[in-house]
């Protein structure tokens, strides 16, 4: 789906942005504002050392809901382009997990759309994290915390 990518393996968010802009936004001189968020894996959650994580998703539904979130952002804000990239599969501490980006003529729309994409994704997109702890045990993350 346009503007949505799921990646099963490490990715460099800055290289993704370079590539996306070169392919889709080169010469776009109406563009004044780009807001970007990158979420990455911490080695600590709820006080426990975490050594790895597995990201499960619902193939089909996940892509569909990420595309719907992009559409909703395009309806709420005046955007030139928007992008969501999300990891699936096995993830290690410091790895980027998610990238959201919004391109607009003006900074208010870019900032707010980028944050909207993240909050909508966190609350609605079907992904589930299972953590591997330092002692080898595993546990599912139970819920996301609100971001506002």
């Amino acid at each position, binding site marked *: 789906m346009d503007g949505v990518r799921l990646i099963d393996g490490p990715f460099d968010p800055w290289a993704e942005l370079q590539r996306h802009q070169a392919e889709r936004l080169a010469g776009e001189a109406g563009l004044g504002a780009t807001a970007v968020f990158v979420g990455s894996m911490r080695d600590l959650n709820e006080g426990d050392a975490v050594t790895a994580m597995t990201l499960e998703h619902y193939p*089909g*539904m996940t892509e569909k809901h990420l595309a719907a979130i992009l559409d909703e952002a395009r309806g709420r804000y005046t955007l030139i382009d928007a992008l969501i990239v*999300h990891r699936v599969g096995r993830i290690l501490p410091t790895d980027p997990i*998610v990238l959201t980006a919004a391109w607009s003529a003006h900074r208010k729309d870019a900032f707010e759309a980028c944050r909207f994409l993240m909050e909508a994704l*966190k609350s609605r*997109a079907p*992904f*589930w994290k299972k953590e591997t702890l330092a002692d080898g045990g595993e546990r*599912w993350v*139970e819920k996301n915390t609100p971001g506002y």
Partner: protein
Amino acid sequence: MSLTVRFFASLRERLGRDAVELTATDAGTVSEAWARATDGAAMPANVLAAVNQEYAAPDQPVSDGDEVAFFPPVTGG
């Protein structure tokens, strides 16, 4: 009619099942699909449901050929 019922993440592990095919004469609702696919297990309060990959309420009717999914709160991002 037939329904596919799918489970994800901790729910899949807890129930020990990934997908169940249901066949029946009447269609029923999302919560009836849960009851039949889990052999009558109680539905946890925080379970989310989807019909054909759209979020659905427990009393939403299901139709022949639908894919019904159950999963815990989402934790992506």
